[in-house]
């Protein structure tokens, strides 16, 4: 395996299943190999250093604080155009947020790579990439292309 994506879903369910099937250690071991790791939406919550609303366990593989369901319920789920800045240059990117978590704090080693509605919505520390939106629903492979180039 060259790279791993931890996808969206419900983080409470994912944690429950990670406990039941002993996935915490293998995921940390994968991250330790330095191969690229991408967490989207619930996946970002699992990779984060700290989780709020409510506080819950996470893998702590990227130094960010994440607030769950921060934009609201499904009623507040939204699509919008944001800015993706992969290598200094800025490109427009359509983004889909579903009951999305918010990146509320980035550690000193973490770089913001995209923004939307004045929030940082994508961040990277070393080989770990996280996004609060769903790149797979945007109809644009820009984020996945960037992720694969990290390897």
């Amino acid at each position, binding site marked *: 395996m060259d790279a791993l994506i931890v996808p969206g879903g419900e983080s409470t369910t994912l944690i429950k299943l990670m406990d039941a099937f002993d996935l915490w250690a293998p995921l940390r071991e994968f991250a330790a190999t330095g191969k690229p790791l991408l967490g989207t939406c619930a996946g970002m919550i699992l990779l984060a250093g700290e989780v709020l609303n409510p506080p819950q366990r996470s893998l702590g593989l990227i130094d960010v604080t994440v607030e769950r369901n921060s934009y609201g319920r499904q009623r507040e*789920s939204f699509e919008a*155009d944001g800015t993706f800045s992969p290598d200094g240059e800025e490109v427009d990117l359509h983004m889909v947020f579903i009951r999305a978590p918010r990146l509320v704090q980035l550690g000193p080693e973490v770089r913001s790579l995209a923004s939307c509605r004045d929030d940082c919505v994508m961040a990277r520390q070393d080989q770990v990439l996280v996004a609060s939106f769903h790149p797979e629903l945007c109809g644009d492979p820009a984020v996945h292309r960037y992720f694969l180039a990290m390897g």
Partner: protein
Amino acid sequence: MAPKSNGQSIETGTLRLKTGLAEMLKGGVIMDVTDADQAKIAEDAGAVSVMALERVPSDIRKEGGVARMASISKMREIMNTVTIPVMAKVRIGHFAEAQILQTLGVDYVDESEVLTPADEHYHIDKFALDVPFVCGCRNLGEALRRIGEGACMIRTKGEAGSGNIVEAVRHMRTVTDEMRRLTTRGPEQLMTAAKDLGAPYDLVRLVAETGKLPVPNFAAGGIATPADASLMMQLGAESVFVGSGIFKSDDPAKRAEAIVEATTHYEDPEVLVRVSEDLGEAMPGIEMGTLEEGQLLQTRGW
């Protein structure tokens, strides 16, 4: 109403957002709950969502009377207790109940045959609301009619509250067979197929091309054991709804957890053995032959 923009090109209530939430629930279990305590048990067991309702289907069947949308206070209580999405049922055709649930902030609405229908001719125009809808079906034509009205998730009807999987199997197999048959048809045959199915032509063409529904396809109606969940997943369901099966069993927390693990690892018999052990009694089941036509819930909807 949908979709809306505030001038900064921010859109809510789009089809992509409605279907997107359903996509996030794939591989999971959605559990019927009637109060906050049950909702908490469901969330702790690993449910991806809970369905709020006044009475579980087996009680509706037993007690009779008109079954309506759950009370506002119950729903608020449940929404304040869990962080996972909360769904709720409305009566077929009762768009005012749906408007109320949308305003309350419910995440998904089930226009459900389990409640007493409010309209014997028309289902809700689901495009008119921002909140996404799930609807039941017994065959492909019914599934495509509901999608044509704006449903973003389809489930089998099965026979709710029966604890008997046979109807859900029948409905899932019927939908799958009918989709497979469409993929073998030539373009000139599709209009007649649409007429025979009673389904919108564009959706019939889409299914003929892709061999699958354009929205997630879940199973519901009669799931009572981890084995039932595995069976429906192996038959092609992408998630399962469990109604009376959990809270009408001996040990709801343990059974809920077991059904979650069985749904994730539906193809791993060793997991199925482990989670099926020492579960206590399942809910009592009903043999279909003992139900009169008028007692069936699945024949509601058109």
